[in-house]
């Protein structure tokens, strides 16, 4: 039905490079959908207009839906419209992608925190006498013996010229365009103490921020961008011979230097476009990642004055790096596993045409109040509640291992119920990872998933603004109180159809399958040998 003729309905605006019109009178069949997280997802509308009237309607054109207060109810980009010339006349079937699609526009590798030795390779500047590889500290290394490291050295009997001879490994892992090394932390340990050899960390293009005599004994080295070094476009760890010409000893095997990676962090981009060091080297918090990602991936399309990021996240993320180009939406979706109580949205554009962004907790108090009379349907659950799971994996020798992880599920009482067994992917098997994955699987099976739908065709109470609002003004990403049952459910999706004059609400918690849980729990994690006993830990 046309939107026209009454004051309390919506209006539709179509903006193309050559025209900018409100066309409520010419549209019919308006539907739109909004989701949490993301916000404005998609919309469909039929535009009754001569086919020649919108020759430039395409992906750079925008569709807006406003309510009578002038609030933007929906905003997005039109796809290439379907043109119809039927018995019903000429027109365009306009499908539009909501502005949340902006989170999927830009793609880039990006470094947040990387502890993987896969990201390192032998430097091209090493001398023929040198050796460099990913390995473990030698058995005589003391406290570090058997721990994984980048092991640098010179081959016995090889000649080393005066102040010549270099063994080095270079970081070749992911970084975004313009991103620097924000912070680094290593543990280094050498096989001998000598002023003829230097332990160096090189920061490209021109800074050796660490340069010390080779020494025995494990020591931690930490450096932050702009505090400890001023550049950071390249990173290498080096064993440099600086003494007089000599031949490497053939009688002792102590000329080695190991670098254990504790963390390599990228700089974080602020709203002004400046790369900054992270607050700490040990871990990142989700809101810090989101802050960087918004500035990095939404540059030029987001209004930095309308970016709102809640800083209350607490999960300590120790590994997050994307070697393949990644999009903002993927990053935030990945973070949802660590911070499941947060959601995000791209908010409508302001007068300057730039959109806003919000990353915020779901909250614990309901925003909307609905009734079971609103077509409320809560589906029954056939999900299995479980309090045990067996996690299997193959260790570094290929030997099968397993671990039984347990949890307390009050609804099961004393009953012991096993979830389907889980097998860790190749190369990621460790008791620590098994525990981590097992706990995640049991957490998902500890309470029945709650899901429901409701159809709102009347004004309902919005407790945040204290107003009775129209169905089309309902925003996903908040809790909905079902008055009769007292349930507070997450509003994950809202779909409005103007032909039905109603909003269809999808309520409940997201459900992840085991594959998703494993992938999320182990994302980017790689194993390094912890000690000579063959026990592995996630790096």
């Amino acid at each position, binding site marked *: *039905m*046309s*939107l*026209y*003729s*009454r*004051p*309390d*309905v*919506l*209006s539709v*605006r179509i*903006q193309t490079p050559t*025209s*900018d*019109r*409100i*066309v*409520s*009178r010419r549209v019919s069949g308006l539907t739109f959908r909004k989701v949490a997280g993301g916000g404005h997802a998609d919309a469909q509308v039929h535009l009754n207009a001569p086919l020649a009237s919108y020759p430039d309607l395409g992906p750079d054109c925008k569709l*807006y839906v*406003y*309510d*009578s*207060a*002038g*609030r*933007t109810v929906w905003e997005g980009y039109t796809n290439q419209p379907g043109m119809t010339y039927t018995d019903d006349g000429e027109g365009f079937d306009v499908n539009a992608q909501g502005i949340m699609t902006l989170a999927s526009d830009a793609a880039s590798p990006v470094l947040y925190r990387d502890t993987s030795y896969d990201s390192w390779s032998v430097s091209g500047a090493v001398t023929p006498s040198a050796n460099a590889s990913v390995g473990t500290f030698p058995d005589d290394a003391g406290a570090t013996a058997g721990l994984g490291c980048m092991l640098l050295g010179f081959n016995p009997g090889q000649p080393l010229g005066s102040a010549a001879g270099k063994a080095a490994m270079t970081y070749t892992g992911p970084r975004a365009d313009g991103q620097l090394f924000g912070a680094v932390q290593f543990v280094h340990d050498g096989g001998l103490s000598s002023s003829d050899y230097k332990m160096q960390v090189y920061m490209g293009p021109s800074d050796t921020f660490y340069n010390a005599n080779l020494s025995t004994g494990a020591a931690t080295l930490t450096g932050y961008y702009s505090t400890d070094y001023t550049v950071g476009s390249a990173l290498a760890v080096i064993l440099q011979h600086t003494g007089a010409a000599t031949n490497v000893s053939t009688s002792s095997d102590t000329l080695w230097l190991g670098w254990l990676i504790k963390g390599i962090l990228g700089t974080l981009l602020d709203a002004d476009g400046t790369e900054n060091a992270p607050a700490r080297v040990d871990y990142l918090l989700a809101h810090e990642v989101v802050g960087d990602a918004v500035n990095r991936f939404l540059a030029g399309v987001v209004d930095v*004055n*309308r970016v709102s990021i809640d800083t209350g996240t607490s999960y300590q993320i120790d590994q997050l790096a994307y070697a393949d180009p990644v999009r903002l939406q993927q990053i935030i979706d990945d973070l949802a596993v660590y911070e499941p109580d947060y959601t995000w949205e791209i908010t409508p554009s302001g*007068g*300057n045409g730039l959109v806003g962004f919000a990353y915020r907790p779901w909250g614990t108090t309901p925003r909307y109040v609905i009734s079971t009379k609103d077509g409320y349907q809560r589906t029954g659950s056939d999900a299995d509640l479980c309090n045990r799971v067996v996690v299997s994996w193959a260790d570094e020798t290929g030997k099968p291992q397993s671990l039984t992880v347990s949890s307390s599920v009050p609804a099961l009482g004393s009953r012991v119920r096993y979830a389907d067994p889980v097998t860790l992917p190749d190369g990621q098997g460790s008791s620590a990872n098994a525990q981590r994955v097992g706990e995640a699987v049991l957490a998902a099976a500890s309470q029945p998933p709650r899901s429901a739908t409701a159809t709102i*065709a*009347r*004004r309902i*109470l919005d*407790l*945040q*603004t*204290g*107003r*009775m609002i*129209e*169905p*089309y003004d309902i925003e996903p990403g908040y809790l909905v109180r079902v008055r009769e049952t007292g349930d507070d459910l997450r509003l994950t999706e809202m779909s409005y159809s*103007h032909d039905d*004059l109603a909003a269809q609400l999808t309520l409940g918690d997201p459900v992840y399958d085991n594959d998703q849980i494993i992938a999320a729990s182990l994302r980017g994690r790689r194993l390094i040998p912890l000690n000579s006993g063959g026990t592995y830990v996630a790096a």
Partner: protein
Amino acid sequence: MTTTYPRLALTASADSDADVLYEFNVDSDGFAGHDGVDFGAPEWSGQPDAVGGVDGYRTVAFTHWFAAGRADAYTELATLSRLLLRADGWLLVQMTEASEPRWFHTWRSTPASLSPDQVLIKGDGDLAGSWGISVSLKADPFLYGERVTLDTVTIANDPTAGTNPMSVVLDEIVGDAPVPLRITVDGLDDISRFESMLLTLTAAEEAVMPVLWDIGTGDGAEVGTDTGAPVSDSSYVGGSYREISFATEADMVSRLARSDPDTDPIEIPGIGSYRAILRVSFPDGDPSTTKFALQLKAAPTPLPAVTVVPAFSVGGTVWVDLGIASWPLGLPSTTDAGGPYGAIFEIYAARISGAASIIVDALLLIPDIDVVDSATSLLTLLPDVWSSDAVAVWDGDTESFWVLNPDGTAGYTSPSPLAGVFPVAIPGRTNVLTVVTQIGDGGSGDVITSSVDVTVSYLPRFLWPAP
């Protein structure tokens, strides 16, 4: 030739002076007419109590008779058929000579069938016969009257002005159905370009005007952190203002409040929703380097904060839209709940960056739904390019914005983004038009001594022809 009534005719537009394209009542032979007239009725789409239901098209049908020889009949039929096959048209209906004319806006639709039974041949050859044609037309839900143009009014850009303080009560709206307005605003040439302008129209049984809290001398405020004493200055609303310096606290805290419901609430005429706009000035040095966030707390919850980045470097004043709040919270409109209501609230402000202070001198609460029967708002980002001395026109019938030169010719402009619903007035209600000429933070200054001349016109909408 005598005109008979009720008169039906196709005309070029909804205007008494418009060309008559086809007359259904008379012809040169003195015999023509119609019977079986059915004006139809608009079909309501949606549940009876649905939000946002709309009136659908109606069908107007009658049988048109005329007497003519074959040659004349051929001409008559061709003339009428060509008009019926047009994309749209106007069908004049006038019940008596004394009745005012009204028009159906008709649309191309399935023509009625023609039955040989309706053709009565009274003689041989080209002798006269009587011809009957069934006419069936789809039309807009309501009949239109001739365009009504209200007297031009001057709206002062000062909420304390004695006459039309940023709002005007429109003369009685003619018609039966809600009607989109054509609003012509003159005087915007004093306003900087790329400025947002808000038109809000509210309709209620009795006039519900925006509520002003005149901040400054005698404002009854509880002063919060870093908020100064009232300062007299005639260039501010009510002749005074308060400055917020952020000297000791830049974070979001309460700066100004009327928070005691027993002693100092702001009396508002009815419970429900109001759009709160705050007049803010940036007097210091170069405020464009400073960011502020403003927030209205309508106990117990605050509205989302609004970030303000002054776009000007030499000081300036704008109205900032803080959002729509409800007093009291969560209560739908019902007269049983009493009224008027003593609203309490707090103004929060933070300085995010920079060193500038701000001045606040007025908070205006524009009634929204719950308080009034209907509220429609349209926000316009005025184009940066247009003719000097141009007159801005917003037309709800065509959902268009354009500018006119003083001589009535089309003015030069670039596309102007519009957001919201074109203002719709409701007959039988008191309609109040509020004009905020500087809203947002993109312009260079709001001046209380300025004014705009506003002319409102519309095509009144009726359910039935005038008796």
